[in-house]
């Protein structure tokens, strides 16, 4: 009798955990801040989407320094928040420490790898998505010159630039790729004025399609390109709607899905650790096509980019990853 009672209690406990859809999700942004119209905002959108669908609210925090990031992750963990998603590679070492302290909490890190059983590391093949928009840029350019404007000169952004250059060269072997970085401090992610100046400069040098991978700085790039009747390419979120008819396409990086899936998997009890690599094949990176840019993408361009996509998926085209050897063949 006692045993059956115990079994019953154990079963009840088990079933409640299986039904425990009320997770307490948390989200820690990069130091760029929540509303950057780009990377961090995509993460926010993912969490919002989960909230809308399930009614489960989430807590978020915008750290201003590395020390605060670690504190925030630890605070969430010690208050029972689970799962905890931290976007930005800046939290790698913080995550290594905190995830080891709380082995029963599930963590997700975006854009970096932490090798612990309770951490899911979500990384993206930005070079593949950039390759696709590079092909579109190479084909759309009439002057034979395309531009790239990055935020801060860090490996991640070189990865974008390298994939883009490879794509543009694949479309047009003689194309020239102009490259500029916005700055050397964190302010480079949030300097639309300087982004605009660099764009003007590249346009003066003859570029007629400009790809921005620079957070909120990119807004200035897109604006200046639109003002000068040139084409631009957005990044991270779908930015086609910002200047319809001028934004050629956007390199969409599905940070929102990474956040959304983490919460969903945790609620369903299907959360897994390990590395999740999201490339073109997994729809983790893509070029954006909607009503705003449908007229800019000709049928030939669409055929070419779809072919490239299929080639990447099948493996017959391999886009070089800058991070693999810290150099770019272009």
């Amino acid at each position: 009798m006692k045993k059956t009672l115990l079994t019953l209690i154990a079963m009840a406990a088990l079933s409640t955990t299986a039904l425990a859809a009320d997770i307490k999700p948390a989200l820690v942004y990069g130091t760029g801040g929540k509303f950057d119209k780009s990377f961090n905002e995509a993460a926010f959108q993912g969490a919002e989407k989960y909230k809308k669908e399930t009614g489960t609210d989430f807590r978020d925090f915008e750290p201003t320094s590395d020390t605060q990031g670690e504190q925030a992750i630890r605070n969430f963990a010690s208050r029972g928040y689970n799962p905890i998603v931290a976007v930005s590679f800046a939290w790698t070492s913080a995550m290594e420490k905190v995830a080891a302290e709380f082995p029963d909490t599930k963590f997700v890190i975006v854009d970096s790898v932490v090798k612990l059983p309770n951490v899911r590391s979500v990384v993206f093949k930005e070079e593949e998505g950039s390759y696709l928009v590079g092909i579109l840029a190479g084909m759309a350019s009439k002057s034979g010159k395309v531009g790239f404007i990055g935020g801060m000169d860090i490996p991640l952004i070189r990865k974008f630039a390298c994939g883009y250059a490879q794509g543009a060269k694949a479309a047009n072997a003689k194309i020239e790729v102009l490259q500029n970085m916005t700055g050397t401090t964190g302010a480079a992610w949030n300097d639309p004025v300087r982004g605009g100046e660099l764009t003007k400069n590249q346009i003066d040098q003859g570029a007629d399609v400009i790809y921005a991978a620079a957070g909120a700085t990119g807004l200035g790039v897109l604006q200046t390109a639109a003002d000068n009747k040139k084409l631009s390419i957005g990044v991270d979120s779908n930015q086609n709607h910002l200047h319809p008819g001028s934004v050629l396409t956007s390199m969409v990086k599905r940070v929102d899905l990474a956040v959304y899936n983490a919460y969903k998997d945790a609620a369903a009890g299907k959360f897994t650790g390990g590395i999740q690599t999201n490339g073109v094949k997994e729809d983790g990176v893509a070029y954006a096509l909607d009503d705003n840019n449908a007229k800019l993408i000709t049928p030939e361009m669409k055929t070419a980019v779809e072919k490239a996509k299929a080639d990447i998926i099948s493996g017959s085209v391999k886009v070089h990853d800058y991070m693999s050897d810290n150099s770019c063949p272009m």
Partner: protein
Amino acid sequence: MSTASVPLPNWITYGLMPLLNLLVAFFISGLVVWWIGEDPLAALKLLIEGSLGRGDAIGFTLFYATSFIFTGLSVAVAFHAGLFNIGSEGQAYLGGLGAALVALALDRYVPWYVTMPFAVIGAALFGAAWAFIPAWLQAKRGSHVVITTIMFNFIGAALMVYLLVNVLIVPGKMAPETRTFLPGGQLPKLDWLMAWFGLKLGPAPFNVSFLIALVMAFLVWVLIWRTKLGYEMRTLGISPSAAIYAGIPYGRTVIIAMLISGGLAGMMALNPVMGASARLQVEFVGGAGFVGIAVSLMGRSHPLGIVLAALLFGILYQGGADLSFEMPNITREMIVVIQGLVILFAGALEYMFRPAMVHLYQRLKRA
């Protein structure tokens, strides 16, 4: 009669007036908090508890304060010589390079207490070197040190990003940072100090560099008020023409003051680089150099005042982060507003209450 020249006792100038300024700043901040629909008293309680309520909270507060003591002293030393060093930020950034190179070179072979003196010297040397060119330009060419030190912040940032992305980075890693130092290159935490007071430090990175900061604060006091060089610097600060007339070498004093200032800023790097993260990262200074200006202003450029002002800013930093964590309505921008109000009242408007104080004091004295 002007009230500016009336002498007031020190306890009013250095005790009561800063306290009054602080209260007004908190009152206005409270109005802002109330205006966005939160309870100001609850917010104040969270701010105090979040910075002083627990062992680890105090640890974080003191960790931030340590950085601010270094940069505050840096600004103050230059200020005594009449120089406005806005470049502590860049000097601290370069100081990090000095500390990191020492740690990377020695951490495999020797324990931390052998590495530490070399790291202190390395950080100070690199910081001082970064202050040297603006100092030389000021002394010999009259290029204003405010302009040149600001520009050197950007040159420093560019140099550091280049080095971290291309030279010092661990190949294949995403983050532009050096490898993690082994224990021989790390400054140990001060948990024993906290244990004296029955507090548990927890994960807070409060470390030995706090003690180095206190030693430096004492040495700065000795330098400024007890040495010939300090006397020369102060004379130069009050009246350059009088100093030159008295035979104090202008160029030499300017350069030495700036070198000491840069060295102190460089030592700030010991705290985050070797004390907390055990690696050199991009932008590890995080604005501490600029906070140093406010700290020095509030502390009236006196080491004791600087230590107290640094503690206050440590409380605002740590308590502010905790407050915006507990009250999501109070965003991190709101915390900057509160910090800004404190700087405004305690720094820029420091003499606002002085006339009223003088009248009150004179009336009380007559009575």
